[in-house]
């Protein structure tokens, strides 16, 4: 007779014990690891699988909430103890406020006078001791038995519910007892899992970056490049961001200590043109910001805060013969921020520009529509926004069909003449848009903490679902 090694092991166990519950076996094996061999043995008539329906208790959603955050009355008591003792304040606990207050009153833990709640001695005592009901809820969660009286109370409060469960017991048959395991040979099981291969692969975020790059190239955009350390001139001044703008403050931008300042002479006459544009508009047709522009401030090196600094560099290097032209970039940017689940000190951004003497705002919306459709979003909508360096500025929302909601995915606009003319030397419409790939990656992989993109847990990297577009 041929039997899979797992089935042989199980039969050996049953020869010793005669009968054993599936629940017990599952303590150190998966359900499949128990039931698959059990079924093979049953098919061979070597064991019987008996099924019984038993009643067990399980936590309700309220019960889970109570286990995590405390019982409603406890939450109320804690709030009252913390000094927030008006009925109105306690209402901020949401749905559990009503039952919490009711229960606390019923148990004599609080008194309500003139719309404020006061702890009774019993209430103070309760805060001090570990709560019995919580211990019971914990037991239910762990599948342990609880006494009937307590169960009734918890059922009444809707914290637990009755559930039916199938309990299986495996019992060896006479045939099973008689079978000599030494006469059994191994069977090969094609259905069983093998060990995971240690494959090499690209990072799951890289797959999305590559996809975005491909989309740009397919639309005729040429990749531009620029360094991460740039003078403030490129990151801010060239983008018509006044020198007292909040974005230039120390808590937003990394300024450099080494190397501290840049030599602006490589930007030629653009430096003067930018100065005059800020001060009084120069030949751009603008009033300018009307303040005294400082070249020293513009020379201060920063870590670029957006890829628009790369676009500014590209515009500066452009000549009239290059037009029309389309460029894109995708790269790392930096913000001097405290790192938390929502913020990182560095992040990737992708940006494209179209420099075309005949371009207009309708074209911009056309490009955006096409670009985001190609990225895989069927519906795209636009609304007015504000960026210091674009006028006609656009906020782009796309419809996520899977999650059925609108998501803000990027920003766009036409560069202001105050940006373009000092950099290029003449006026030409420039359409620009950008997006943060992080948003796409996090939604794809169900991440809620942005730091998880850079966690580099090798198992996670190896097992992440691929980007199949």
């Amino acid at each position: 007779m041929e039997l899979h090694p797992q089935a042989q092991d199980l039969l050996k166990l049953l020869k010793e014990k005669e009968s054993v519950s599936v629940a017990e076996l599952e303590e150190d094996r998966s359900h499949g690891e128990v039931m698959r061999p059990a079924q093979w043995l049953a098919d061979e008539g070597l064991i019987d699988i008996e099924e019984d329906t038993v009643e067990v208790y399980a936590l309700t959603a309220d019960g889970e909430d109570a286990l995590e955050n405390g019982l409603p009355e406890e939450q109320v008591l804690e709030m009252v103890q913390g000094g927030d003792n008006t009925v109105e304040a306690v209402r901020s606990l949401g749905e559990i406020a009503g039952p919490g207050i009711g229960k606390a009153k019923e148990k004599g833990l609080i008194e309500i006078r003139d719309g404020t709640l006061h702890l009774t001695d019993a209430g103070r005592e309760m805060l001090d001791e570990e709560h019995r009901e919580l211990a019971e809820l914990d037991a239910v969660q762990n599948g342990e038995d609880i006494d009937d009286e307590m169960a009734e109370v918890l059922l009444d409060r809707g914290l637990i519910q009755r559930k039916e469960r199938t309990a299986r017991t495996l019992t060896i048959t006479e045939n099973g007892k008689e079978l000599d395991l030494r006469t059994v040979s191994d069977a090969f099981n094609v259905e069983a899992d093998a060990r995971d291969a240690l494959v090499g692969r690209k990072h799951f975020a890289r797959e999305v970056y590559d996809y975005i790059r491909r989309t740009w190239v397919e639309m005729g955009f040429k990749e531009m490049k620029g360094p991460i350390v740039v003078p403030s001139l490129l990151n801010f001044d060239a983008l018509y961001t006044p020198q007292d703008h909040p974005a230039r403050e120390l808590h937003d931008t990394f300024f450099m200590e080494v190397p501290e300042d840049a030599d602006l002479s490589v930007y030629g006459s653009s430096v003067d043109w930018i100065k005059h544009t800020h001060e009084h508009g120069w030949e751009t047709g603008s009033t300018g910001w009307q303040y005294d522009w400082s070249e020293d401030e513009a020379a201060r090196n920063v870590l670029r805060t957006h890829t628009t600094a790369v676009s500014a560099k590209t515009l500066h290097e452009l000549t009239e013969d290059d037009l029309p032209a389309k460029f894109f970039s995708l790269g790392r940017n930096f913000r001097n921020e405290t790192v938390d689940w929502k913020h990182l000190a560095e992040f990737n951004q992708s940006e494209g520009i179209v420099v075309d003497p005949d371009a207009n705002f309708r074209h911009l919306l056309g490009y955006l529509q096409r670009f985001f459709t190609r990225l895989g979003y069927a519906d795209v909508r636009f609304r007015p926004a504000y960026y210091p360096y674009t006028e006609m500025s656009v906020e782009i929302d796309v419809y996520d069909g899977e999650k059925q909601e609108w998501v803000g995915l990027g920003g766009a606009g036409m560069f202001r003449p105050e940006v373009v003319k000092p950099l290029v030397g003449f006026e030409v419409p420039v359409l620009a848009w950008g997006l943060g790939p992080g948003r796409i990656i996090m939604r794809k992989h169900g991440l809620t903490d942005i730091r998880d993109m850079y966690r580099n847990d090798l198992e996670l990297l190896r097992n992440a679902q691929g980007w199949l577009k």
Partner: protein
Amino acid sequence: MAVIDVKKTDLEKMVGKELSIERLEQEGSMLGILFERSGNSPSSLDRANASSSSSTDEDNKIAVEVEPNRPDLLSAEGVARALKGFFEIETGAVDYPVTGGDVTVTVDDSVEDVRPFIACARITGLELSETALNSLIQLQEKLTETYGRKREKIAIGLHDAAPLTDDITYKAVDPAYKFIPLGHDTELSMAEILEDHEKGKEYGWIVEDFEKYPLIVDSEETVLSFPPVINGVATAVTTETTDLFLDVTGTSKREVETALNILVAAAHERGGTIESVTVDGTELPDMERETHTVDPDYVRSISGLDDLSADGMAEQLETLNYGAHGEDGELQVEVPAYRADIMHDYDIIEDVVIGYGYDNLNEHIPDIATIGAQTQERVFTDKLRELMVGAGGLEVMTFILSNRDTLFGKMDRDDSEIVTMANPLTEDYAVVRNWLLPSLMEVLGNNQHNRYPQTVFEVGLCSQLSDDTATGAEDMRKLAYAAADRDVGFSDVRSVLQSLARWLGVELRVEEADHESFTENRCGTVYVDGHEAGIIGEISDSVSENWGLEEVDVAAFELDVETLRTASE
């Protein structure tokens, strides 16, 4: 972006129409204003309108998010004005008639260096409800916070005009000068205010370095304000106030006057009469609209609205509260005195398009031939990644920003000068990394709970100081590859390096070298076609321990991508 709180009933009263929150959310966003219900229960129109007593404050609250270029929308009054136009209840520019007043403000030379500019106005005949008063106070706060750069550029005082004489002076005085500030019932000197008063601690830094502090005071020594810090208690505004005196001080004449105009317009919206104040010989506020002549062809070419006539443009602008007139191929635009953001025709064109509706434009993609391409560097690094993946490498992605302990200390290396930030918030991110291997060591150190063997790689940016660039810093792209297991050695990574060299078609040579991070006699400098390209070796036990990797061996190489690329060409 600034957020203000408004009451829906208050907005409706000023707009003269019932407004559903859904309509505000949807259509408001097309005006660039985001509305969001901020109360905790859904407010039904009927309830909100039935009577103020049956609708709680919570039901009625709306949070309004305003873009920073539109400080004129930082109040319920401004938002209501914009909605009236956009919903075509009342289009065109609002007139703000100014009657001549008797009050004069003398500006003393002493303020020149401290806080040179002041603009003032009077509003009379007000009957302020608590809501209206709160709205004006909110406007004052939000204006100074955002547009006024936390009062450094602009500070605003709202005063009850009743106790004041007609003769007011703006001057700088000795910090020993005493008066009773708001929030106190005894006199404090200005120096004490900076020391002890809540507002003094918050805003004192703006003036503390000057020998004298600014003061606005009338001829009877009634103190209006110690700008930008605190007002005097004598002119405190209440719902009983019928006549307001407004002062705006700051460092930019244009912005000081625009802020005054924004306040005056809002107070006028509340039914007040505007009365002028003579400031240093000039009558303020100047609520005249500035006229711009815009070429309709320019509007059409930039917006792409090819068929829109000058008259059609004027119509759109009127829904955004401009005065506008389009005729004979010419567009005359009157810009309201409260608009702070109109610097260029582009700004007016944007408002034509917003009036027209972003959602009403037909998108069009022009047929221009351009050739798409990635940079050669990019194509090359993509190929390198493919090869590393083929060698079983798992790509990791790490931070470019780092710290000296990671780059030097934990790698047993001597500190050297590298690209360094001046103002990092945390010491974790204080420099730009100058090599990549420490990032891989960190990854391996964090992955000891996972299966071995572990082979990881990254192609990533580093930076170095350079005399050849304008900034003095230069990006470098590095390829690092590391293998970790119980028994991993030099040959395991050398074999991958050899495959790489063959694929590149370059001659590979490794010369034994000393490097603090690697084991002696198990480390070499890598040359490709005779050019130094990087380093290879077994990580020393001491470095491994620094990363908590006592149980496994690590071998690795790090190469300069640009050197590989040029050698392979």
